[in-house]
């Protein structure tokens, strides 16, 4: 698969580091990971997109699904992304208003709003 995933905990947050391309073929793998984390009781997630080369609407759908799942448990899902080409699809769809997007994992992990 063209997608790499790794997780680590930082305090009460779980950081999911994503690498490669998130598209219709690889997005289910990310969805599975997010579902598993929530099922295991991790409700405060930080998805680090700095290593992502490509993101399409299927990927956005998976992130939205993840957000809904954690919110059902009063949790949070934050993103780390500085790449303009990835931020573009969030802007076009208006999802920059839905996801907190941070410039670093440290910042995302420390955020409390």
């Amino acid at each position, binding site marked *: 698969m*063209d997608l790499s995933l790794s997780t680590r905990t930082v305090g009460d947050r779980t950081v999911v580091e994503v690498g490669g391309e998130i*598209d*219709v*073929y690889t997005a289910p793998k990310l969805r599975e990971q997010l579902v598993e984390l929530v099922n295991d009781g991790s409700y405060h997630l930080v998805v680090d997109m700095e290593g992502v080369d*490509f993101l399409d*609407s299927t990927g956005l*759908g998976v992130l939205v699904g993840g957000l809904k799942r954690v919110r059902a448990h009063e949790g949070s899902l934050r993103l780390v992304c500085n790449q303009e*080409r990835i931020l573009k699809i969030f802007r*076009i*769809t208006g999802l920059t208003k839905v996801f907190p997007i941070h410039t670093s994992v440290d910042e995302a992990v420390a955020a409390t709003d």
Partner: protein
Amino acid sequence: MPTVELLFSALPEHVRTARLVAAAVARRAGVDEAVLDEVRLAVGEACSRAVGLHRSSGVDTPVRVLLTEDEKKFSISVGDEVPVDGAAVQAAVPSARPESSPDEAETTEAEDEGQMGLAVISGLVDDVEVIDGENGGLIRMTWPTTAP
């Protein structure tokens, strides 16, 4: 007559193949380097939508992508073979395709993603046409090219 024609089985793993071919042909045709990310994303969305439609309707013919280089423009047409109920032609909104899949929740999810895909395409590309016909649909996207 298209510069390059690509036919691929309606499988998610081949959407990336279509993106790579489209970017290569676009670059060759003189589409600005800065715009290539947009081409990749737009063709990926159109192909993902076609794949989703084929799978949810049980159509096992391939998805067709035509890449055409003209004098001042480059266009990509992604065609699917999922018939429309009653040949309704709608502009930027996905048509009402018959829901033949037994798993209705899955069909609705594929349609939702198809709609998000169209929204992304129309937000990205200035020149888009969505055509629905009796035998299937077509999304045509066009970009300007610079002279060599």
